[in-house]
Every structure is written in C-alpha cells, then in structure tokens.
C-alpha cells in the first residue's frame, strides 16, 4: 500500500508542552551506563520494561485500548540475557529478566544514576560471584592500587 504523502512538506505542530523531563528511550536510556549510588558501574540499560501505573489495571495488549486508559509507565531497567535477545531476536522468559526497579533510579543524564548500592542488586550477581570465587582469592586482589 502506498505510504501517505511525506509529512515533512507541511511543518507539524510541536508536541504540547509537558512539565517533567522528557526521555526518548533510544536516545536517553537504552545502552547507557548504569552507576550505583557510589558511582560504581553496575551494568548497561539493555532494555526497558513497561507496565500499568501502580493501582491501575494491566494495559490491554492486542485489543482496543479504552479511551482514557492511563499511559503505561517504566517499571524497570532490564539487563542480563535480554541483551542477547535484543541483538539476535527472540525473548527470554520473564523469570530470566534481571530487573532494576525504576524506583531505584535517582537521575537520568549521560549515565543512569541509581540511588542504591549495587551490592544488593540482582544485576550485580555475576560480578560478585567472579569477585568472591576468583579475583579476591588471588593474592593482592583486595589491595587498593592508589
């Protein structure tokens, strides 16, 4: 079917102004470095999870969304196996997603800054495992080089 006439020829109206910070997922969130409250890298934003705002019914998928349905919100930053499926296609089972809840995010700039320590996060388990099982056991592994 024919694509409608390119809209570029008529200048489009700007989006009505909004009060908060606007974030375009691809431009400002996806693939950005995530730092914990101490400035230590935790992971990257490999994907994002959306859901209905707290206390609202699930956003309908595949069926007509009733007018007036509140917009979904970002519920979590995703990491782990989801990076592989984002690159190669497919989707990991929901149980294999590693989530960093949006409520742990403190600010979004050139990096995504968390308001919590990375130590307690699921997203950091591989790092902790490598540290405890391998690196910390090599002599000098805990020595601060400065």
């Amino acid at each position, binding site marked *: 079917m024919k694509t409608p006439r390119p809209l570029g020829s008529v200048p489009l109206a700007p989006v009505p102004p909004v009060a908060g910070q606007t974030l375009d997922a*691809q431009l400002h969130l*996806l*693939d*950005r*470095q*995530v730092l914990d409250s101490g400035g*230590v*890298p*935790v*992971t*990257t934003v*490999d994907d994002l999870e959306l859901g209905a705002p707290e206390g609202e019914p699930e956003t309908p998928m595949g069926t007509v969304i009733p007018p007036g349905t509140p917009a979904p919100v970002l519920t979590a930053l995703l*990491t782990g196996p989801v*990076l592989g499926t*984002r*690159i190669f296609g497919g989707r990991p089972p929901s149980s294999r997603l590693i989530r960093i809840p949006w409520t742990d995010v403190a600010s979004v700039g*050139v*990096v995504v800054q968390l308001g919590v320590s990375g130590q307690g996060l699921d997203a950091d388990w*591989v*790092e*902790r495992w*490598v*540290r405890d099982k*391998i*690196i*910390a056991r*090599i002599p*000098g*592994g*805990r*020595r*601060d*080089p*400065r």
Partner: protein
Amino acid sequence: MKRLLGVALGILTAIGGFVDIGDLVTNAVVGSRFGLSLIWVVVVGVVGICVFANMSGRVAAASGRATFEVIRERLGPRAGLANLSASFLINLMTVTAEIGGIALALQLASSVNYLLWIPLAAVAVWLVIWRVKFSIMENVTGLLGLTLIVFAVALFLLKPDWGNLASQAIPAVPAEETGATYWYFAIALFGAAMTPYEVFFFSSGAVEEGWKIKDLIQSRINVLVGFPLGGLLSVAIAGCAAVVLLPAGISVTSLSQVILPVAEGAGKLGLAVVLLGIVAATFGAALETTLSSGYTLAQFFGWSWGKFRAPAQAARFHLAMIICLLVGLGVLATGVDPVLVTEYSVVFSAVALPLTYLPILIVANDPQYMGQHVNGRGVNVVAMVYLVVILVASLAAIPLMIVTGAGA
C-alpha cells in the same frame, strides 16, 4: 616548575609509548622493500591519530565516558557488538604479537629460545596490571621506550647519502614491487600508526587519571608534540632499513633483521640499547593492549573497570584480562611466528578503524555529552576527511591482502 616537569614527562612518555611491535615491524619491512617511498603514510597516520586521540580524550574529560561506552550507546547493541567482536579480536592479536615481541627481543639479548621467555613475559605483564599504579606504569615504560631513539642515532652514524635518502621520500612504486603491494603496505603502515587500541587506551586512561577539562591543555601538548616525535622514530626505523637492508636485498621477516642496521651503525652498545628499547616498547604496548581488551569488554557490558580500583572492585574486568593473556600464551605456544601475527594485526586494525572513529566524532559534536566543548568546525572538516580515508583503507584492505598474498 612542577607543571613544566609534568608537561615534559607527558611528552617523553608519549614519544616512548608511540612505537609498538606493529610500528617496529611494519616500518622495517616497508623500509627494506620500499625505501622511504611510503613515508608519507606515516605522516598521514600520525596526523590522524593526533586528531582522534585528542578528540577521545576531550570526550572522556568532558563527559567522563570512555570510548567504548560511547560506541555502545551511539551504535546500539548490534553494531556495537559487531564492533566489539572485531576490536576485541584485533586487540587479542596485538596482545599476542606484543608478548611475542618481548620474548623475541629477550631471545636476541640472551640467546635463550623465545618460547621460554613467553610465559615469563606474560606473567610480568599480568603482575604489572595487577599491582602497579597506572601513572607509574605509564611513565616507566614510556621513558624506557625512549631508548628507541637509538634508531635515529644509528641512522646518523650510518652516514647515509642524505640527498639520495630525501629523494626516495617521494611517493612512487619501486621497480621491483607492484602497485598492489605498494598500497597493501600503505594500508598496513596506516593501520599501525592509527591502531584503534590507542584511542581505547587513551580515553580510558583519561578516566583512570580523572582528567578534567583543565587538564586538556596538557594532554593536547602531549599528543601534538609527543605523537609526531614518536612518528619520527617510526621514520628513523624505516630509514635505517632503507639505508642498510634495501641495498643488500634483505626484506625483513624477523626481529633480528629489524635491529641489524642499528648494530651496523651504532655497534654493540647500540645493540644493547635498542634491545632494551624494544623490550620496553613491546612491554608497554602489551600492557596497553591487555588493558584495552579489558576496557572494551567492560565498557560494552557496563562492568566495573579501571586500575584505580582494587582488582576485587573490578572483578570481571581483571578476569577478562587474565583470560586474554592466557589465550595469547596459547596462540604463541603453537609456535606461530609473532612477526607474522604482527603483520596481520596491523592490516586488520585498518579494517576495523571506521567503526571506532565514527562514534567518537559523533559524540564529540553532541552538546548533551560535551556541553560547550563540542568540536570546532576545523576539527570536524579534518576528521571527516580522515573518515573517508579510513573507510577507503578499510574497504581496500582485505581485497589487497588476497590479491598480493598478504604482501608477499
């Protein structure tokens, strides 16, 4: 005074750190086969690395982001992964070549077979990465690498016919070589001068040392003075080969041939100094490439990284580097010629160049990252011209490799 010393030290380490096994081998091979007729490529390569190293340093200082974080963020996961795979493999080849280079130089110094030196070299590299402070590591290897100036000294002591040498420096294909091999080695020289690991290392080093915008003047001086002088060392290596090996009909295939002109020009003392220089330069480059392997992986996946942290605070980063060194050891244990690995690594470097330099240029223009420190118009024009050159070199590299049988 302290500031002046800092600048001097920075320049000296930039010179000493510029030459690695790729530059040594490629320049000697080219000098022994093409005389100085490819020297213009070194000039083009040095200007290019100055432009892009400077830019990546500015991005790191302004935004705190190292090059591979920027690559992942701008290219996205797919193109980013393609870039990571290519860069990482080339890096691994270069690590292998550098460790082989250390071992070969030690063999020349000791007459003990290089295969026995390889594990020792790898362990030494790991120990430095594990324990030594970043700035000390940089300064010591850089200053020791300065002894490669002996190539320039030897060139003078050889008392060449300078007029004849200068007339060789005009771009022209020598009678006994074909146009294809000429351009193949042009790309190899270009790849050796602009190896991507240098920007990975340079920008990550800026983060390691916590550069701020005010430190940029010093880094700019280091790059703009140090790298061209390092490039002069490259030219001296090629010049020595052109004066001694080209007339003798020896085309370089081993490290002992690379240093032959120094022995002839500067005698036993020169030989001792050049061996020290080669060990220092390849050791320094082995450190830089091993660290770069860790940097690229950690920055792509968002792991904690950096020598400024205790190894336990950057566990996957350190584990990745240990694995890289082990892989390099494994490859060398097969008895593959490190000089051959070097020759291939510089050409593959040229292939991967566009994917590395394009994202740096884009981010250096993005006020979101750079604030008011975005690229000036002049820098952009030069960088765009270079991107075109890089792209052409990258596309031509593999076909030329096949046509010329890797320059044989």
